[in-house]
């Protein structure tokens, strides 16, 4: 691993605090510090750099949500935690692709993290449903939904953007869109 990166590696508590405070710098440091470790794991176990990116980002998201969720306790090193999550995710991916030969070349020590990955993948399934529901919803509903509920734009802004003549029309339109979105979301299996 790169020595410079190691030297500037932030401490674990710095990272936790940084993520809680939405610090872009800390997120970047976290990301760049441990990526080489995961790249090494994936590349030497039948994967390529794109697999490494996918798996690593998934693990960072798991960690990020865990910290944001407030239930993160530092009872192991972050490094070990990230490695274990990636290892678990990669084993899962390998067996899905039938490429798992029953043996993985390890570079770090690791912990059992099955539960966290299970709850993470449950949430992923919800997000996938949401994504396809939004796709099916079509324009302009999709943008209205995103603008209002995700980006927290005001109805006034939305009115101007879509050229609605009065706010009531826009509101009615928004509720109709929400109705349809819910319907699409819950229809999916």
């Amino acid at each position: 691993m790169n020595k410079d990166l190691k030297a500037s590696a932030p401490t674990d508590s710095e990272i936790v605090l940084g993520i809680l405070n939405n610090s872009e710098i800390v997120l970047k440091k976290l990301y760049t510090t441990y990526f080489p470790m995961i790249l090494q794991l994936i590349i030497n176990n039948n994967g390529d750099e794109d697999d490494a990116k996918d798996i690593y980002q998934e693990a960072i998201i798991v960690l990020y949500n865990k910290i944001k969720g407030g239930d993160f306790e530092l009872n192991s090193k972050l490094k070990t935690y990230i490695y274990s999550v990636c290892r678990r995710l990669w084993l899962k991916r390998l067996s899905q692709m039938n490429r798992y030969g029953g043996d993985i070349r390890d570079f770090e020590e690791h912990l059992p993290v099955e539960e966290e990955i299970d709850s993470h993948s449950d949430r992923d399934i919800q997000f996938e449903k949401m994504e396809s529901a939004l796709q099916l919803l079509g324009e302009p509903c999709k943008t209205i939904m995103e603008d209002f509920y995700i980006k927290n734009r005001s109805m006034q802004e939305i009115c101007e953007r879509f050229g609605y003549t009065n706010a009531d029309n826009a509101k009615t339109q928004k509720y109709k869109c929400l109705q349809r979105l819910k319907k699409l979301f819950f229809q999916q299996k």
Partner: protein
Amino acid sequence: MSDNQLTEFIERYLDGSMTAEERVQFELLRKNDAAVESKVTEHVKFIGLLKQYGERLELERRLNAIHDEIDVHALKEEVIIHPVWIVRMWRNHHSKISVAASVLIFAVLSVLIVTGKLSNERSKYEELSQKINSLKTEVGHIGAGGHPSLVKPKIVKTPPANFRGTGFALTSNGYLVTDYHVIKNADSVYVQNAAGESFHAKVIYTEPQYDLAILQINDPTFKNLGPVPYNLKKAESDLGENVYTWGYPGDNVVFSAGSLSSAAGYSNDTTEYQVSLPVNPGNSGGPLLDEKGNVIGIITARQTQMTGASFAKKSAYLLKTIQNIPTDSLSKTLNLNNKNTLAGLSRKQQLKKLKNYVFMVKVYNQ
């Protein structure tokens, strides 16, 4: 109240833009109407998920932006574990190595073919002792008539042999000859005559170089055989002579006839004859007789890819072997018969006389 109105109420309730009066009313509605209450929870959950989804997209975008700044290619070079030099060499040069190997194999094969080293003969020599894989089963006789308890079953038990060949008597007092490869590695040896009687026999001398072994029947139930009707021919026989053998490839004695086709055996082995005679595993050690009833050889092997090409050790080497037996390993005299009583008889009559002097050799080992 329409769905849209209800949703609007819920949203206003949630973002706190209701007047105090409206709020009280709405809370009352929630309490009293379960449908409204469930609408509220569902709405909260759904909007929460939508927002989380948005946050996830945003986080992914941020991570991607960070990722794009990393020089993945350089890192990859750094962390990849390079395989050992031999694997690397194979990966880089396998096409060249394959071509070189093919050329080499081709060259070796052509040299072998041109020099005749690859002719069929060498690998197709098969010794003729028979391996018996299937165990003979016990045969039980249970008396009929409904009184099984009174009638003791009579059990005829034939012990299973691991290996089988043929042997023939040299003298009337129980000296036999067979092939060395038949009794090689034997723990115990039994011989069985045409009547099905088995006798225990002892290997008293072996001559592996000629593939010959001398056995002696040392069973108390053995009775003198009577004068041996054939003699061993000392001189070499001529090509084209009609010959036959008599042996135990199966459970019954089998006769096969042919002619002497060469004075040298497999790979020009001058201690053997080549005979055109169908033999099978189990014939090993059987006598090869000429028309007059002289023993001119002992069946040893056959060539697998030529039907009817078999080999027999010349009788002269049997005589030599007999001479080589140390006198102290002979408990009885070994006087060879010089008188041939088969000469002049028809083949059928010869065989009748021979019958008692040719044995099945059964070999047991672990």
